[in-house]
Every structure is written in C-alpha cells, then in structure tokens.
C-alpha cells in the first residue's frame, strides 16, 4: 500500500531552545487509521503541528529531518496550501469560529476544497451529524462541546481531505458522545478512504479504531506496531490500557511504578 504521509526522524525546537521532538518517525499508509499515543507532553500535538505546518505560529521549527506528503517534501509549503492539497488538521480543542454560524463555519472550510458544490457537501455533513442541521443558523459559540466537535469534523468533511489529522477528538466529551464521534470517524475512513492520523489520550478507544499504533514518550517513538501486537504487549497493557498481565482490569493502586521500569527505558 502506498504511503501518503511520512515523517522521517524529525526534531522540533520551540523558541530556538526547547527541544520537544527528538528524532520521531512515523508513516501513514493510504486509507489507514494510525494512532499516536502517549502521555501529556510526549510530543503528540507537536508532531501533528509539524506535519500541518503550524509550528511557526508558536515560534517552533523543524530543526532536522523531513516530512513528505505524497512523496513531496512539505518544508517549503505554506500551511494553507497544504490544506488545499488534502492535508486537514482538526486541532485540539475544536477551534470552531465562535461568532460564525454553523453553516458559515462549513463555508469557511470550502477554502480547503476545489469542489464548488457546497450545498451537497453540507448535506453530507448533516447526514453524518443530523444535530448540526437543526442548528445550522446558530452561532457556533453556542453549541455544546460535542456539537462543536461534530462541527470541527464536519469542516474536515467539507474540505474533502486525503489525510486527516485528528487531535484529541474525545477531549472533554461525555462517553456516549465520544462513541458517536468515533463511529463517524470510522465511517469517514471506511466510506471515503480518508487516511487518519489520530492522537488520543483514550488509548483503548484509539486502538479499537486504528490498525497501526505508535507510542511516543519524551519526543520519540518508543514502540510501534499493528494494534494486535500493541494490545498484546505487556507494558502497553499495563501503562496505557490499565490492564493486568492476565487481561483483567487492574486497580491503579496495584501498579507498582517504582518497582517495574518500562522495558524500553532500559
């Protein structure tokens, strides 16, 4: 299978001083869902921002390594140009335009697409998320958190991307809503063949929808593999899925962090 997105050994530095990524590599095959897991501050969001070219907004830069999108190095591309070429980043915290209406938010996303049949694109979004249709004239700032996340994904649909970067789509949402959003994410991947690079805190959920996973710690990939392998890995089970080595749910109290070091650290 062809690779749509490839990150080769990148190092990212903020403010010329703070190094966040230390030689991180990953690749996203065509039509696949790839999960990027890790604790807070591991560098997951930074990886996505490096890919979509948003680092300069935060005074960060890719110091070495390279990123290719369909084989082209993206270092010299303006971020809005990458979006128009099919690389869509759904940022953490949803970032809807609060004083624009739902439909205007979707209209803004048409800048990413060459398709001019906007009405049809909106209808598809409303098909995935009927609740947005009811609120199409309302200001996006008045939507609930779940509806805003639907809108954020809806904008991505309008953009018709080839790769979607999803940053914490479950953040701050009720479990039922999380399920609904992840169902749609799976459907988008299946129906449209959009490749997805998924960053999630909820590892169980992420490994359910993904086919391949990377685990990031301190700015580098410490373990990666097909999800079946990851799910069977003793350390992944214990530290990310909260399961004991026997497969039963395990109380956090019994996890003896101070005794057992993660194997990949030694």
């Amino acid at each position, binding site marked *: 299978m062809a690779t749509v997105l490839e990150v080769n050994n990148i190092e990212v530095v903020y403010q010329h001083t703070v190094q966040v990524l230390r030689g991180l590599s990953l690749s996203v095959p065509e039509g696949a869902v790839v999960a990027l897991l890790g604790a807070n501050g591991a560098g997951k969001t930074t990886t996505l921002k490096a890919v979509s070219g948003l680092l300069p907004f935060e005074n960060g830069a890719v110091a070495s390594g390279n990123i290719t999108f369909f084989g082209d190095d993206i270092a010299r591309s303006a971020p*809005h140009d990458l979006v128009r070429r099919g690389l869509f*980043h*759904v940022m953490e915290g949803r970032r809807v*335009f609060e004083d624009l209406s739902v439909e*205007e938010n979707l*209209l*803004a*996303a048409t800048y990413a697409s060459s398709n001019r049949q906007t009405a049809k694109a909106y209808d598809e979004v409303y098909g995935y998320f009927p609740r947005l249709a009811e609120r199409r004239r309302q200001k996006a700032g008045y939507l609930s958190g779940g509806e805003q996340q639907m809108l954020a994904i809806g904008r991505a649909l309008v953009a018709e991307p080839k790769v979607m970067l999803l940053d914490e789509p479950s953040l701050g949402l009720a479990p039922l809503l999380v399920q609904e959003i992840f169902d749609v994410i799976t459907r988008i991947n299946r129906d449209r063949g959009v490749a997805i690079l998924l960053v999630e805190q909820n590892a169980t959920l992420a490994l359910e929808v993904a086919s391949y996973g990377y685990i990031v710690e301190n700015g580098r990939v410490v373990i990666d593999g097909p999800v079946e392998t990851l799910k069977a890995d003793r350390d992944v089970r214990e530290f990310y899925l909260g399961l004991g080595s026997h497969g039963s749910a395990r109380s956090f109290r019994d996890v003896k962090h101070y005794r057992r070091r993660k194997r990949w650290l030694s």
Partner: protein
Amino acid sequence: MDFFLEVSLVGLAIGGVYALVAVGYVLVYRTTHVINFAHGNMMMFGAYFYFTFAELLGLHWTISIVLTVIAAAGLGAGIERVALRPLLGRPAISIVMVTVGIASILHGAAQLIWTAGDFFLPPIFPDLPIVIDEMYIPANTGYGFLVALGAIGGFLLLFRFTRSGVAMRATASDQIAATTMGINVPAMFSLTWVYASITAALAGVVVGSITTLNPSMGLIGLSVLAVVILGGMDSVIGAVAAGLIVGWIEALTGFYIGGAFKDVVPFVVLLAILIVRPHGLFGTPEIERL
C-alpha cells in the same frame, strides 16, 4: 425646539461621516489587532486622489470616484505589503508604531506632492441644501451622510453574505484555525487593508467636500479614534452608533454651549461612558496587554 431637531439632524449627518472613518479602524483592528494610526492620513490621501482626478485632470466625478477607489485600494495593499507583511507575527505594539511612521510619511508625501496649501474639492453633490419640514441641512453634509451610510451598509453586506466576507470574519475570530481551513491569512490581511483604505478614501472625499482639503486633514482621524474606542474597537455596529452619538453631541454643544466647547464635551461624555463600560459600547471585553 425646531432648532433642536435641526441641529440634531446636522449633527447626526456629521456623525455618519465619523462612523465611516471609524469603520475603517474597526476593519483593521478586528482582523489584525492593530490600531492603525495612519488611517486619518490614508483618508487625506483619498481626498487628494479625488482632487487629482477631478480637479487637476478634469475628469467627470463618477470616473474620478472609481479611480479614487482603485488608487486607495492600491495604497492600502501597498502599505500592507511593504510595511506590515514583514512584521507578521510580531507583537501588535511594533506594528502600531509602524503605522505611526506611515502616518508621518503620508503627511510629508502629501505636502511634497500637492503642497501645503488649502484646496476646494470640485463639488460632487447638488448645490441646493436639503430641506425637510423647514429644517435646513447643508447639502454636502446631508449627501455626505448618505454616501457614508451606503458605504457602511455595502461593507456590512459584503461581510455578512459573501464567501470572502466569511473568510475575513473567520480570520478575525481565529487566525490559526482559519489557516487550517485553507484560508490564506496573509491575503486576508491584505484584503482588510484594501477595504479599510477604500472606506478611508470615501470618507476623505466626503470630509474634503464639507471642509477644505489640506495635508492636516488626517488629524480628524485621531479624534475619530476616540469614536472607535467608544464603540468598542472591534464592533462595526459600535463604530456606527458611537459615530452618530459623538456627531450629535458635538452639534448640540456647538449650538447650545458654544463653539469653543464643541471639541471638548464629546470627549467628556466619552470618558464618562468608558468609566462605566471600559471596553466600549459594543466591544468584546478583553484585556489587551501592550
């Protein structure tokens, strides 16, 4: 009592022109968070553009207006490209200082090109005053008000209903998110300056028709800045309301208290309102650290 109404009408008409100038400030501030101190002088340049086309080149006033709008658009785009684009991502205060510099450059350039003398703009509006029910409104002021109203309305519709208007509002709301929608944010900044420059030029033509034309006309921009602050820096509706209020109070004080107080009383009222509403009448409450 009749005088009260008549004075009020004239005041509101002048206020409409203030509103048009104020809207130019708001456009730039909303998208780029920069207070454009050069706005008054861009307005002055717009008036000189019209003067050049209509008086010096002797073109018909309609053609002159169109050419003025085009020249103003060029001026706005040029300023953005040359002076502001390189500062993209720098703190707002640096960019504000650059606009102060641009103001001086424009002022000096106007003196060099058109000399420091006073000129009259060739009349655009019909010479007869507007008479409503025995109330008398000077022609230039009255028609100027209509032009201002039309221009503001036009821009509001543009922002409300066009695709690029939506993109500009999206950029104003969240620049990074706008980038991830594929919106070319620097291009939107450029477009903002073009629009602001056009409103400035139209206002310049109106103000130049009401008063005379000289390179110090840009100073009006500074007093209108007070209007913008009253309306709340980022609200177009606020700018319109504040413009009308200040114009109205100015006319009333000029008539009832005396011309010497005309420039003072509106600002006293402005201070009083800002004490109660620090972020202006319609502004977004937000702490701006400079």
